[in-house]
């Protein structure tokens, strides 16, 4: 299950960066690019929280005081 979520997250990230590159190269119009980036955002937001932070690492805290 975890690997499926990770793959979905990676696809989400890819959809956030590949459409802008395709737009830059003239292979995609702006509205389609925005749509795919929105889908990529959703894919990342709904899958990444289930595997990132799952293994609680005791990294240095950023809170001062």
């Amino acid at each position: 299950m975890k690997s499926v979520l990770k793959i979905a997250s990676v696809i989400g990230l890819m959809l956030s960066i590949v459409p802008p590159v395709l737009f830059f190269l003239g292979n995609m119009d702006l509205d389609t690019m925005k749509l795919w980036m929105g889908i990529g955002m959703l894919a990342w937001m709904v899958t990444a929280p289930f595997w990132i932070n799952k293994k609680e690492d005791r990294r240095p805290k950023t809170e001062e005081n």
Partner: protein
Amino acid sequence: MSSIGLVKKLVAQTNEFERTPIPDDQLKGNKSFLGMYAGEHTAGTEFVIGPLFVAHGVGAIDLVLGLLMGNLLAVMSWGLITAPIATAKRMTLYYQLERIAGKNLVRWYNLVNALMFCFLAGSMIAVSATAVGIPFDLEMPTLNDWLPRTPGWIITVLVMGAVITLVAIQGYNQVSKFANVMSPWMILIFIAAGIVGLAQLGVGSVESLISVAQEVIWNGVPLPGMSRFTIWHIIFFSWFCNMAMHIGMSDLTILRYAKSWTSGFAVFTGVYLGHFVAWIASGILYAVFLQANTGSQEFAPGQIAYQTLGIAGAVCVIIAGWTTANPTIYRAGLALQGIFPNVPTWKITAIVGGITSLAACFPALVMKLLDFVALYGLLLMPMGAVIFADFYFAKKMGFRSEAALSTKSNFNLPALLSWVLTLGFCLGLNLFYGVEIFFLGLPGWFVAVAIFVTLSKMKYPLTKSLAK
């Protein structure tokens, strides 16, 4: 879990090793710091700083060279000034300062710190509001606005402030985790913004990139009402925008966990992603906005990101602003709790949230963010200089190290005078010689060190028996 129970748990967690050195089994390698700093320096402020550089009419070459040099100086400051002290002492900034300057002075430091955190969080709420307001067709603030333009802006900001404060009271850990999760995506959105922006400005080759950068984006012409920035502004701003963290020593609290002092250099991932890539990308976004809206004085990061990247851009602005404002409100609450230890944390956080929300109503906080960031660092920097001078010069110059601790005092006059006189000196440079706030940190640091060493030698001289 009740809110009070949760707050107690959070406070207990953040008080870990507050007054003792970090034990060896808790130390972290360089990798931990690489990831942490990469996320920490890609924040809501980046959506404002890059565009403000464009508005201030900096030239393209000045910007790129200035950022490369200034960020390098910042990395060196973390690596050579903060990290060696952090790994030698392994104490929080606050406890280290208490041992030198005494509890009473640390209270004042906490108060200034808390106020600065409130204003910083307020500016981030305002940034998020520029994205939240898009569906409601909210009239956005302009570059020269100091006061709110419409009641709609005030309502939006106050509602957002209330929500963010409630989350700060109840769920800091969840927001912190959410910020970690969203960090890789936000970095990609910044890169995407740069790519799309360049395409919209007609860049198709290296030659056109150079000409568009120099003639369209960073063309050297400030917008009406803005001063002109040179390479020196960029160098000093990028060096000192985190002055409170490096030479101001706030990051002692983080770097005390480092196995080796070389972890201080790990911050390069953060500053070159957040303060190079993200500032350049957000500047490109703003240039696209200015091209599409000729003569517009509107300055709304949410609107700007939405026009170029759609919903993903607007959401990125909201998340970046929110995930910066939230921990900042929480930190302000903790700083104030140092002054009022008997008041429950949730009450203090609620008060801080109220002050922050009121501050966020004023767009001046966003429009003058560069000046505010410089002021924030400058106000706290002298105490970092005191810690530096105490660590390196106490033995060599013959005065007692950690004087408040060794004399069992709650107050250290040389530290107070070092703080106040340094700020007075900087104010004088600004008022009488017209030195801009961005350039005051460097001379101020030397003055603070000199005052502290001189006065400590007079007030806390090492006796012969102590010197041995």
